[in-house]
Every structure is written in C-alpha cells, then in structure tokens.
C-alpha cells in the first residue's frame, strides 16, 4: 500500500448524464463532463478557470444509488455513475437557493451597473421568482472605494469568485473572505497597493458588488458594442473586448471564464490617435522620406501585417530595418534554435501553469509580463510548485510565489546560466562534447563571480528531485546582454536534455512577431524614417510625429504572443488618417488592406496561410482556446558549439535597471488616464547612501543617447545598490533603449 496513489487521474470512465452516455477520464468533475457534453447545469459561483469554490450549491445533481444531492462542480465522476441533472426536487432546491440569494439583495436593477449582464438577475428570471420570499434584518454597510475597483457589500452574494481569482490567478492575494455568517464580506487586505489586477476580480463578479470604479454609472451594459480583440501591450496578446459607444471606449472586458486580463489591458485603453484626417501634403512628404531613407527604425508597437509590409519594402526598395528590442530577441532566439533545433522555444503557458518546479531568470517577471507571472502563480497554487527566482534584485511582489531567491551579480548571467546547466544536467545523459564542456566549467570561479553559492544550487537541485514538469522562464535582461548568444545556447540545453518547458518571454509589444517576420539589421545607416521612434521623418501613433499613424486599437491585424499564438485585433475606434499600407502602395508594395498580408505571413517561420477574416476568436464551452492559431515550430539546423565562459565585466557601485511599473509598458500605456504611475528613479536607502542622493533629488543621466530627467525616490521595501529606472514615460524615445538593462549610473544633479 505504499504505492503512490496519484489519484488515478486520466483513467477512462463512462458516465451517464440525463440518459446520455459520456466518455471521459477520471479526475474530471461531474459538471466538467456535463459541460463537455453540452448539458446545462446552472451555477452561481462556478468559474471554469479556478478550482471549484462550492459556495452557491446551485449545481447539485442526483446520482443513482447515492443518497442526497451531490455537488457536481466539486465531486469527481466515478466510472459507471448515472447522473440526473434536473428533476422537480432538484429544481425546487435550486429555486430555494435563489430565494435565499434574493434575501435583502436590493432589487434596484435600474441603477445597478451590472443590470443586463447580471447572473443574479438572469437566474432570478430563470427560476421564476416574482417576489422576495424571505427577509432578514438588513445590515447597513457602506460602499468601499478601493481605487481601480469599488465594492458594495449590500450587493455581494459571497460567491468568492473574486477571492479565488486574487489567490489562484493573479496572485495579488489582496482579497479575502471575512467570515461571519450573514455578516460575511469580502475585504481588501492590500488596499494601499491599489492593484490594477483587481480589475480581473471585478470582471468575474456575477453581480454588481465589485465593479470598475471608472466605469460605474457611465453606461448601461446593453448600450455598448463589444469589439473582440487582443491586448497589444506586453506581448501576452490576451483576449479582450473593447466596449464602445459613440466612438468612445467605455471599458475593456474579457472572457474571464477562461482567460485573464491584467490591469494594463483592462485600464490602458484610451491611447487612440484621435481626430486625425488625411493630410495629403504630409503624406507626400512621407513618401519622399521613405524614398530618400536608407533605414526604417520602428518600435515593437506594430502588428504582424505592418511588420510584413516593412519587410516587403525592404525587399522592394532596399531599406534597412532596425528595431532594437526585436533584433536582440531575434538573435537570442537564433542562437537558442541552433541548440534546440527549432525556431521557437517549446514552452507554453498551460504547461507553465501545470509545472511542479519553475525557474525564473533574467526578468522582473511581475512587471515584465503579468500573464506569465499569473501562470507561475497558478503552478504555485495548484501544484505547490517550487519557484526559484534568479535575479540581481529581489521582488517583494513575488514573495508569496517564490520559494528560493537566488541572487546573482549584475552582468554574471552567462555564469549563472552555466551554473544552472551544471546543476540540472548533472545526472542527465548528454553528448560527449556537452559533457566535456560541463566538466570543464570552473564551478568555483563561476560561483564566486556570480555570487551564487554552491549550496544554493544544491538546494535547487534537491528541490527538483522526484518532481516532474519543470519550466524555465527567461526574459529581457538576457536578450541585449553582451553574451546573449552563449546564454541562449546554454539555456536551450535545458529544453533539449532536461525536459524543461522553456519560455523566452518576448519584450513588450509585438517583438516576437517582428523577430519572426523581418530580416532585421543591427545598425542605422543614412537617413531614417521612424515608426513610433524619433527619426529624420517620424510616423507616430501618439500624434507627435510628422505623419500620424493609427494606434493599435484603431487598426486590424494580428499579434504574435508569448504563447506562440497569432491572434487578431479589431478596430475599436475610427481612424481618419493614412496607414502604413497606404505608404507601401505608393512605393510599389500593393495590397488593398493591411489585413491582406495576414495570409502572407512567412510559412517558413511557422505562420499559416489563412485570411484574417477566417481567424477564429473564441473559447469552446470547456475553455479550449480557438483564437487565431498556434505557430508551428520549424526545424532549423543544429550547431551545438558552446564558447568558453567569458570573463565577467564587473559592475561596481550604483546601478540602474530599466524596468517599468507593473501596468506600464510603453508610451501608449503611459497615455492611459486610468494608469497613473509616477516615473521616478526608485532606489533603496543603501542606493541613496552610495550615490549620496536624497529622496526628491532631481538628476539627469543618459542611456543609449536618451536623456532622462528624473526625481529620485527612496523605496524602503528595496535593498541593495540597484535602482529601478522606468522608461514608459519617455515617449517614442523609449524604443531607442537597446543596451543591457543594467547600467552604471552616471548622473548630474539638477537641484530640487
């Protein structure tokens, strides 16, 4: 009996639901199997993407041979079970529960934000309740404004969905249930943080209890037109809907049942380039600028189709294409592919969320990619995943998820990657050349230079013993690293030989799409045209360039996401000016619409030949995602030659790290009025002492020829001599930042 019983998951079973014979697997709940088979069971608290909550009891069913009513959302179906989801008794119990839900719930639907999309309203009708059958003494509890969201306890039905999302999905762990029978309520234990991720908690609220503060009392739900799209900010490409009336976006919603949207996607929507008309004169200048230019320099805020147009222009008129972040990522992935043999990393977000151990390296992931952080959190909550977080800077926001913080010295990423390879491939069979490479590593020296203790690595190795399902998440610290190619090759070994699910998180925007579509150049040459980057002639979706361009929410097209998916964006707001395709048409690259290029995206990189209008955009009833399509990984030649580890270039003294606050990614999120982040240089007391800076000092410094004027602020939660330097407020210039994310701070004072 010491047999490890991993609950027989996956064993084939047959159950009968309402007379229908259903094939499924053990481990699934009765409700899941019912939904797979399109059998309706009413619920109030069920949310597919979290584990069963079981608070509403609406989903009770009867099982032959089992006494009492069974909670179908939580109870797993057993082989041979004969289940009835509805009969007079069940209906009566459900109706009674609805009567209870309506106890003292103010039926003031006319002035409730949720009216028209309220589960309570819908179920009250469904169960034919014409009056409030019971009453209890009312409790007078005021509405609470928590910042991005507001909470009205009087409307709350205590389904606990919001708490589950806060715990299991976003991991902010701000919301808790305050137990107390009839007086139970939801509390926000981290109000001072005003997490924008609570927008997701509001999204799942079935009633009008937790709502977006900004949207409240602005429109009836049914007056808004839903425009499905994908979020362009971080590279996650999350599913979203713009909800629009009279050419204004009132709010962003999402398919919260199955997918999740972070605060940037939800609140960073009002960045459209408005009031633009066709200025033929400037347009002519733009055409001339292209004709005279040798280089087009562009940011990551372009669609796959626009990237392809630029590539075609390169092929047609010999322009050089420069896009710094995408180029660094492209080179990193090319080196990675030379070891893995495939042009894409193998990792997926789903596999990440199912991992029992996760290593995060070279990214401040909570800020760099909320959706990836959410999936790490899911692994932590659902699988008690060990999460090793390797970075020069600790992140307090990750403490509830991280089980081992491994700090390495700034610049020592190559050594850190080599140590990881040594640790994780110790007991794995690898080709002789790689084994010799590993055996030749000077571990003592690497450990000393990177400052990673051998005991830390041993602890890491031990924590993986007997576990299955490992993920490695790496990010932008590595892509512009002087040793990026070598780091990429080292990490690819973990995909190939240690079975890791590896995700190389692309930089913000559509850097991944660009890196696959464009043949990019390293250096700018001659006259330049910039697209969302300052240049001799500038096209700008922010409205501050020479010729206006549409913002991402004003154009059709596709994005390539961290999950290796090509997803569609639709037009939320009208745009009256010229688009890149218009320019291309004047330069001999002809197509009627930008989206005509969707089907022409490069097949040899994994794209499919499919018309934009044929792209699917939905989740099925059990949550399988059908949004656009998944890229197909392409074979590439393998060349597993590893270099010797380079000497570490020391980074002494005060260092700054380019890193945006959690919901900021670019000039476009910066423009959104609901995302109000201050752009200050944030450092610890220790940093202040090292630089002799005081809280509130104004300083100026230059990174990659971009000049920053910043207020220095002390953040008491930080430690060490690395400060956080945001870049989202730098407008179009932020795309010029192309070096390694850490740099020594050399500053001048500007006085208070």
């Amino acid at each position, binding site marked *: 009996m010491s047999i490890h019983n991993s609950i*027989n998951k996956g064993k084939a079973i047959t159950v009968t639901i309402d007379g229908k014979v259903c094939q499924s697997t053990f481990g699934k709940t009765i409700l899941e199997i019912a939904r797979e088979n399109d059998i309706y069971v009413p619920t109030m608290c069920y949310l597919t993407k979290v584990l069963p909550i079981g608070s509403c009891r609406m989903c009770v069913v009867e099982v032959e041979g089992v006494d009492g009513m069974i909670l179908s959302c939580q109870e797993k179906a057993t082989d041979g079970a004969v289940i009835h989801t509805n009969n007079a008794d069940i209906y009566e119990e459900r109706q009674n529960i609805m009567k209870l839900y309506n106890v003292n719930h103010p039926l003031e639907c006319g002035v409730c934000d949720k009216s028209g999309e309220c589960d309570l309203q819908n179920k009250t009708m469904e169960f034919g309740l014409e009056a409030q059958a019971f009453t209890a003494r009312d409790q007078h509890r005021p509405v609470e404004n928590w910042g991005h969201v507001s909470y009205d306890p009087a409307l709350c039905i205590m389904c606990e969905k919001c708490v589950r999302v806060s715990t299991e999905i976003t991991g902010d762990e701000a919301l808790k249930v305050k137990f107390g029978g009839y007086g139970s309520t939801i509390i926000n234990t981290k109000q001072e943080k005003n997490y924008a991720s609570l927008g997701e908690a509001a999204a799942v609220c079935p009633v009008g209890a937790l709502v977006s503060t900004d949207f409240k009392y602005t429109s009836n739900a049914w007056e808004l037109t839903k425009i499905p799209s994908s979020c362009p900010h971080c590279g996650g490409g999350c599913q979203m809907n713009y909800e629009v009336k009279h050419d204004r976006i009132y709010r962003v919603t999402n398919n919260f049942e199955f997918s999740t949207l972070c605060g940037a996607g939800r609140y960073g929507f009002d960045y459209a380039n408005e009031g633009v008309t066709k200025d033929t004169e400037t347009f002519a200048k733009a055409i001339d600028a292209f004709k005279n230019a040798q280089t087009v320099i562009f940011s990551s805020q372009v669609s796959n189709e626009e990237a392809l147009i630029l590539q075609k222009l390169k092929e047609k008129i010999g322009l050089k294409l420069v896009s710094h972040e995408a180029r660094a990522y492209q080179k990193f992935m090319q080196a990675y592919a030379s070891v893995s043999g495939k042009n894409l990393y193998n990792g997926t977000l789903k596999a990440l969320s199912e991992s029992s151990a996760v290593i995060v390296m070279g990214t401040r992931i909570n800020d760099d990619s909320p959706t990836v952080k959410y999936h790490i959190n899911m692994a932590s909550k659902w699988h008690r995943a060990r999460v090793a977080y390797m970075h020069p800077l600790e992140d307090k926001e990750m403490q509830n998820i991280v089980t081992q913080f491994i700090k390495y010295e700034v610049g020592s990423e190559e050594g850190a990657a080599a140590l990881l390879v040594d640790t994780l491939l110790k007991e794995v069979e690898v080709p002789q050349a790689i084994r010799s490479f590993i055996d030749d590593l000077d571990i003592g020296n690497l450990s000393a230079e990177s400052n990673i203790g051998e005991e830390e690595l041993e602890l890491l190795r031990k924590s993986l013993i007997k576990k299955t399902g490992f993920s490695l998440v790496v990010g932008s610290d590595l892509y512009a690293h002087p040793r990026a190619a070598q780091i990429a090759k080292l990490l690819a070994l973990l995909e190939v030989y240690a079975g890791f699910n590896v995700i190389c998180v692309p930089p913000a925007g559509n850097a991944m799409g660009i890196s696959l579509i464009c043949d990019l150049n390293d250096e700018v040459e001659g006259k330049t045209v910039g697209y969302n980057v300052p240049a001799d002639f500038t096209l700008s979706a922010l409205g501050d360039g020479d010729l206006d361009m549409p913002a991402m929410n004003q154009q059709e097209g596709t994005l390539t996401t961290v999950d290796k998916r090509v997803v569609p964006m639709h037009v939320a707001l009208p745009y009256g000016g010229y688009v890149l395709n218009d320019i291309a048409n004047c330069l001999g690259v002809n197509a009627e619409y930008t989206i005509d290029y969707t089907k022409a995206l490069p097949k040899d990189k994994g794209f499919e030949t499919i018309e934009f209008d044929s792209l699917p955009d939905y989740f099925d009833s059990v949550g399988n995602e059908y949004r656009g399509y998944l890229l197909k990984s392409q074979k590439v030649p393998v060349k597993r030659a590893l270099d010797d580890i380079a000497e570490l270039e020391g980074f002494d003294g005060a260092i700054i790290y380019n890193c945006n606050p959690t919901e900021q990614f670019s000039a476009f999120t910066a423009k959104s009025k609901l995302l109000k982040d201050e752009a200050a240089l944030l450092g610890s007391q220790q940093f202040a002492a090292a630089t002799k800076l005081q809280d509130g000092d104004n300083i100026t410094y230059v990174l990659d020829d971009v000049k920053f004027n910043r207020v220095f602020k002390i953040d008491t939660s930080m430690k060490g001599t690395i400060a956080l330097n945001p870049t989202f407020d730098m407008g179009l210039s932020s795309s010029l930042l192309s070096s390694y994310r850490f740099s020594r701070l050399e500053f001048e004072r500007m006085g208070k």
Partner: protein
Amino acid sequence: MSGIVFSTWRDEFIDNRGKPSDEWVESGFKLPETYHGDKNSKAFIGWDGVAIFDEDIDAVELASQYAAQYQEYSEACGRCAPGRWGGRILYDLLDKIARGEGTHDDIAHLKEISKTMMTTSKCEIGKTVPKPILDLMEYYNEQFNTCIDQQMPSKHYNGDTNYIAKVTAPCTDMCPAHVDIPAYIEGVRDMIFTDSLAATRQTMPLAHTCGRVCPHPCEDACRRMNLDEPISIMELKRIGADYETDHELPWLHPHEPKPLRNDGKKVAIIGAGPAGLTAAYYLALEGIESHIFEELPVNGGEVAVGVPEYRMPIGKYQKDIDLVLEMEAVSITNNCRVDAQKLKEIEAEYDATLLGFGARLSKKVRAENENPKMGGYWGAISMLDKVNLWHKYQIGAPASNELKDKVVVCVGGGFTSMDVVRCSIREGAKKVIMLYRRDEKTIIRNTTYEEYHEAVEEGVEFIFHSAIEEIFDDGENITKLKVNRFELVPDPDGGRAQLVKIEGADFEIECDYLIPAVSQALDTQILPDEWNIEMTSWNSILTNGKDYMTSREGLFAAGDCEYGPMTIVNAVGQARRAASVISRYIYDGKCTLTDDEIMEDHLNKLRVYDKKEKITGWMPGLPRAVSEKLDVDERKDNNKEVNLGFTGEEAIAEAERCMRCYYISMVAV
C-alpha cells in the same frame, strides 16, 4: 432533579414527560446532565438531536438560541448560500416567535428553509442545525403554538438561562490536541496556506512535526470512512507549515501574541519536548513569561533525539522549536539537569511549575540473565540518542561504529522499536531482527501500515509471537538469545484470546546487540521524596486528566511523564490545557476550566464520531491520496526523508474530499 425528560439524541427516542418516575427510560448516551461541579444542565442540543433534562424547559427559546449560536458562529460559516442566509432566517423567525410576534406562516417557512439547509448546505453544521430545531417544533409544538396563538413571549423569554455553545467535529474531538482539522483542510482547499497553518496553530504549535509523525487518531474518527476511506488528515497538516518555511514568511501565529504582562508572574517548565514547548507557546501567546529547563544541549526532547531524521527531518522540527523559543516571553537554559533539589528551588522561585520531562528510561525485556551493563545490551532510548545526536547535530560519534556488520535484535512492537530497527539498517547492521509477542496485525495497529511495511522493505526480519527467555553472554558481551514461541489460543468462552507458549518451539539467535524497546519509564528521581507526589498504578504522575495539576499545589504535569509513553499529539493536548489552567492559576490560585474546555470534555465523553451514521450528499468511491515515498534503495542507507509529501494536486484533491463535519452543540444551564 435527575434523569432525561426527553431525548432524540442519535437513534434514541425518549419521552418521559408525564410518566411516573419509576417508568422513566434512561439514555444509553453520556449526555451532559451535569454541566460542571454541582451545576445541572437544563438541556443539551446538538447536531444529532436534543435532550431535555428539565421539565420546565423553554423549548422555543432553546431553539432560537441554538439558531443564534449557529448564526453567530463566524468561523465555519458564511461559506455557502443556504447556510449563510438560511441561518439568519432561522434565527430571525424563531426569535420572532419567541418574542410573541410569530405566525403559523413562520413555522411553514422555518420548515422550508430547514429542508433546503439540510439538503444543500456546504458543511455538516448547516446540514445538521435544523434537525433538533425541527424536533423541538414537532415534540414541543404546544409551546410554539402558545406563543403564536396568544402572541406572547415564550415562557422564560429573556430569563436567566445561560446558553453555552461549542463547535466541534468528529476528527477534532478525537484529536488529543483538538486541532481544528476542517479549518486547516479548508485552507489547503482554498490554497490560502497561511490560513491553514493559522488554524493548526490555534491548538497545535508543532505543525511540521504532527504533519509527519503523528499516529493520527483523528483518521479513525473521520466520517469519510463511513463513505469510502478516511481523509489523509495528518499529511495535509504539513502543507501550511511547509508553505511558511518555503516562502520564509514571518512566524504566523493564530493571533498576535499579547504584550508581555511584566507583572512578575512566571512559569517554570521542565523539559523542552513537545509538552514543554506547547505550554511555553500558549503561555507566551497570552503574554505570560516562562522559563524552560532542558537537560540536553539540544531542544525538542524525545522527538529530536528519539525520532530518526528519515521520519522527522530536524530542519523541519527545528522550525517548530524556533517558533516557540523565539517568542519574547519564552527563555530557556540548556544542559540543565533538574534533580529533586533543583526542582525544590525552581518551585520556590516560580508561580507555577509544569513537569514535561517525558519518559526516557528503557524498560527491561524481563529475560533470564538480563544485565543492562553487559556489552551488547543497549537501551533503545540511549541507542536512538546516539544515532540522532550524531546525524542531526554532529554530537558524539556515529552509531555505525558499534552496529556496522553486526547482528541486532530488538524487542518491541511500538514506534520506538521501529525506529531502532530501521536506524540499525541505516547504520549498516548485517542483520536486524524484531521480536514481537503479538502478531502482524497488532504491530500495524500499534504503529502504522506504512511504518511496518517500510521496515520490511528495508530488510528487517520480524519474528512474531516470540519473546526472549534467556540471554547468554561470554562475560563481556551478549552472544545469543533463547527465544520462546507463542500461539494465540482463542478463548472458548468468547473472551480475549490468550498467548500460549508452544512447547518445543524454542530457538536460539546468535547476536551482537540486544536492544530492548518494550516501553519507557519516567525518571522519578526528579521528584523530592517529601512531596509524596501521587503516582498512577503504572508509575506515572497522577492528575485528574482535566486540569493536569499533580497532588502538589502549583505543580503540573503533562506529556509522557503524566500519561506514560504516549504520542506527541497527546503531550501537546495535555500541555495546552495545562497552560490554560496555569494562566489563571498563577493569578487566583485556583484550578479552573473555561466553558469551552468543559464543553470539550463533555463532547469527548459523549463521543462525536458515529461510525454507523449513513453519509448523504457526497460521491463515494473517490480514493484517498497516498503520497510518494522514496524507493527502498534510495533510502535504506541514508537519512533522507522517506515521505515526499503530497504534490499540490494530490493535496487539493484530498482536501476536496473533506466533508467539513462541523457540528454545533449547546447546553442550557
């Protein structure tokens, strides 16, 4: 007054109303007719029915107060729609009737709400609360009708009856430390692991330890057993503790420790084992200072030096120890052996003294020529001390110096003997034999299936129905043993089967070591003779088992020195109660129990778990999760923790099997 007027408790129905006293039927249950001391109960009402002891009972108020208790019970509820609103409506309607403002429609509504609660509530508390209320409405309907028809308050409405309630669960009741098990399991289910740990620590500071090496008597009282298999209660406990450790969180206490009282009151604790640590912890949470005197250089008592690393890694136990010792109110002196003289000095200096020094003398096997001084004769406690001090603290020398390539015979049958044989394997013994008087089934019952099975896998040879008759030596060392064999002969009269020696079946074993692990006794030299401390018949310190004061005023005892060799969880439960009593004793010089403790004892006597109860509303046939263990080859030559614990998925699946069998009971006095 005495006797039961009326009862619907469990499957019993008694109605003595209006009967002459010689015809009164008695109850088969130990119902709390007497509340405490000379105070009688008027009624007892709970999940399984209602019992009335006083003919003048106000049934309407009793029902409404029971609903009120449920309504106010804030920890368990508010987690499902029927319970949350149903509970409130029950109370509102019952109180309306009791006030004299009710209608017959209210009665109908009460019945309707009760049915929904009983069918669809999330936990047993919501499912069971309506039962006794419906009983009262049925059998005392005239009282309800009077209130309604005459629009008058119930007969003693707002009178001087006291209603004392207590929430329990079968597992909680059975646990000697009364851990709020459904709450810590719910914390795992909700994936709010800090809530899980906080729930455990309300009554159990050693969460890492009792999440690993508890014999889990709670699992024998798990209602899930009535449906399929009990919940793996013990293993779910370590999830919260591991979370705190893994994420390097600050200590999570069940409530913010109260500030030091600084009133000069202080408590002495003898021994830093489970009992001493537990008492120090709960005193410290109340802001009461204690000082621990510990004989060994290391802390944790027998669990540290007795329980092997592969079962209870010291790194984890040390977390439990540090939790206690880092409390501001706790201080400790190590390497301090307390003898009778020292104890007298301590007693004079401190306001109360708790003995928690355990039972650390190995008893003899009672064979001919048994000489503890003979080479090769090694008491289990001292053998395990040596093994553990070396492996856990690098104190002393490895026991492999003695045991490598030797033949070791252990006599035992309990956990200690299992530790001896499995450690001997790990120290490189050539052959390890366990002699046990009884059979395989009994050894499994005394320990656990896993423990026995793992020992067999590791190569321990078990010889059942055997006992040593004589020990042979060469003047310096033991050389061989003469062993008798027994058989179990059933009693023809149906009594307990007898062990009878099989004539002619004796055999000899050549061996290098004999390690007796039959039982342990306490070292009574600590007790000054002139105190004449009363002892039990098995020579442990006597208390009344409720307040844990010894026959000497101000001297308390808990754990193995009170009970005799028993479990960690038993020591924890006793010490927590003792700490509670001490926290009052040091101020008023009296040994008192709180209402909650009185109710705890009543319920324990009544027995909460009913193994015959039929479970409804849950899907049967969902298997109990079993955690992965190291393979025998991966573990038998080292001290790696054998049990790898649950994966997250297993833990949550297991937590979802928990039926949250909370019950509420109430006494009217």
